[in-house]
């Protein structure tokens, strides 16, 4: 492998990792408030198809992205209602979201299966002046697009918000011990709703980015491919911390892109299917390895994660 191939692969890994990072940070925000939303895959898919339809209709990637984020936020709001107000099981509700999201996005996407995105609706590249000329780092990190840079800002802002601000403290309290937060006068249901919906918006944004920057055309079968679930695993690996999720996302971006790099480098002994398995197997093995180091795993998970709450329940 020559140097330019490595640089190209790393740049592609950053791009491929960006939707994972967006979805994972969104899920961190949701889970920090104690809501487990397993429906990331469904929200990403719905976000992707909505973005595609809107972007192609308006010719604007930004309108498309807003539409995608909004549609996913609506799905997240459904999950919020079912799990917060109706106090139903969050695992089943999240899975229902996945199934519904897959069904709806395929249904809506059937007429446009294989249709390419209008070139004007593609996300434009944006280099960072000055920084883009740094060797290796320049092309890998600073010759991407606005969303990639926005993801860094998002990671920083989320970390700052969760660990340094008054509302962030409340969010974490809701995720750790919701009855305590309630007794301290925090509007627990409102916080859970808001953060579930924001998490959904980011998952929708992740789907939008897939369509606007990474994939040439709409195809349900190839759009998310389990990325939503990898994003959930990333939350665990990242111990519910935004920065770690960002770095982890790029590592997985590399795993997703490794097959292309190997093909480009002329490695053909491993078939495409097995290379495609790599990110999933990597996730599984990392999860198992992580659970072997028990204390670290427990250090992160919000204690009230997945638990419904009713003030007057005795």
């Amino acid at each position: 492998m020559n140097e330019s191939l490595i640089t190209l692969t790393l740049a592609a890994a950053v791009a491929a990792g960006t939707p994972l990072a967006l979805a994972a940070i969104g899920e961190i925000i949701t889970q920090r408030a104690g809501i487990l939303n397993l429906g990331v895959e469904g929200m990403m898919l719905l976000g992707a198809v909505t973005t595609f339809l809107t972007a192609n209709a308006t010719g604007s990637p930004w309108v498309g992205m807003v539409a995608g984020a909004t549609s996913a936020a609506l799905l997240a709001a459904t999950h919020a209602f079912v799990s917060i107000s109706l106090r139903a099981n969050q695992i089943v509700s999240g899975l229902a979201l996945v199934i519904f999201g897959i069904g709806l996005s395929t249904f809506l996407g059937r007429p446009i299966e294989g249709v390419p995105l209008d070139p004007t609706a593609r996300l434009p590249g944006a280099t960072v002046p000055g920084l883009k000329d740094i060797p290796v780092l320049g092309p890998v990190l600073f010759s991407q697009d606005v969303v990639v840079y926005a993801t860094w800002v998002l990671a920083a802002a989320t970390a700052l918000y969760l660990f340094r601000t008054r509302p962030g403290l409340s969010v974490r309290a809701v995720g750790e011990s919701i009855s305590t937060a309630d007794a301290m006068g925090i509007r627990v249901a409102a916080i859970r709703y808001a953060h579930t919906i924001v998490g959904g918006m980011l998952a929708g944004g992740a789907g939008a980015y897939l369509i606007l920057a990474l994939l040439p055309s709409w195809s349900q079968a190839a759009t998310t491919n389990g990325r939503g679930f990898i994003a959930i695993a990333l939350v665990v690996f990242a111990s519910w911390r935004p920065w770690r999720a960002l770095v982890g996302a790029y590592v997985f971006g590399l795993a997703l892109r490794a097959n292309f790099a190997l093909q480009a480098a002329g490695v053909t002994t491993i078939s495409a299917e097995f290379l495609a398995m790599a990110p999933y197997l990597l996730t599984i093995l990392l999860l198992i390895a992580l659970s072997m180091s028990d204390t670290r795993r427990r250090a992160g998970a919000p204690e009230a994660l997945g638990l419904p709450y009713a003030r007057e329940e005795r």
Partner: protein
Amino acid sequence: MYPLAPAAAVLLALMVGAFFLVVAGHDPITVYRVMMRSSFGSTPAVINTLVSATPLILTGLAALVCFRVRLWNIGAEGQLYVGAILASGVALWFGDRLGAPIAITVTIFAGALGGTLFVALPALARSWLGTNEIITTLLLNFVALLLMNWLIFGSRSYWRDPVGTFPQGKRIPSAAEFPRLGDTRLHLGLLVALVAVLLVWLMLTRTRFGFHMRVFGDSEKAARYVGISARRMILMAFLISGALAGVAGAIDVGGLSRRLDPNSLAIGLGYAGIIVAALSRLNPGGVVLVAILIGGVRNAGTALQALPERVPMEIAVMLEGAILIFALSSEVFIRYRIRWPWSAHRAITGSPFAAIPTGGDRA
């Protein structure tokens, strides 16, 4: 209240479906009429619905067994593929050398074994290390799908038909083919599925293991107190669940496709099993009824595709998701109902999906 709630869930889901049908420019009344007709409107329709329901009964049971002990095996999909891979492999290998009853039995057991083997890794990780089973089982679905695709589309494997330009699985020997009812597509698999229902029901109600499962599912602390090994319980539930999903794969091979056919297998049967289990409120008997309902919805999806206006069949998947969301929501009403003072006797299973915390962090 209980029979009303799923009915209301279906009705509300149909309304959501109608909304999106209108958005997509279809007439919901026509679509639903066609759906009804093609799933329950005639004897052939009902038979097709039962054919669609057969694997769903098994994947529904697979989900049920794990959900009963609050384990979230979301990997029935992949366990089904691997069950089908092993079943077809064994059928291809032994089929001609054995008599029909033995070949069929061996095929079914191979399917069970395949599902069991494929669930073993997440099961062991969960029972020994406490690794969150939701993500591991789920991601293995993608691995299994890729494996199956590689066997048929990506390689010249033992499973692939060596002749013909179009890549497809090798046909299994006739000895391993399940008998069918007359010239319909209804096959032995339905009987297998019903026997599985009976066995699971007996296990849950009549055996010590089933009693311990209920204790464990109700309170892990009580199970520990009694001396029930959590590791063993988790492992057993997973393995039984995987076996049931694997059998669902085997009956597709033996009864329907008669080869390893990714197009027939990869239609979300495992995921739908979750819906079936949830709507049955974890009752083996209920699984049969719900599987027929969902089977009907899926069966209708195919018919819709054939309409002149070509309504995408995925409306069926969307409806399934919506039904699950509404069924889950209706749980809350059932829960309140049982808390009212005049209903002193509560259903013994209680409300399995209400207020269950996540499964990940129990070691």
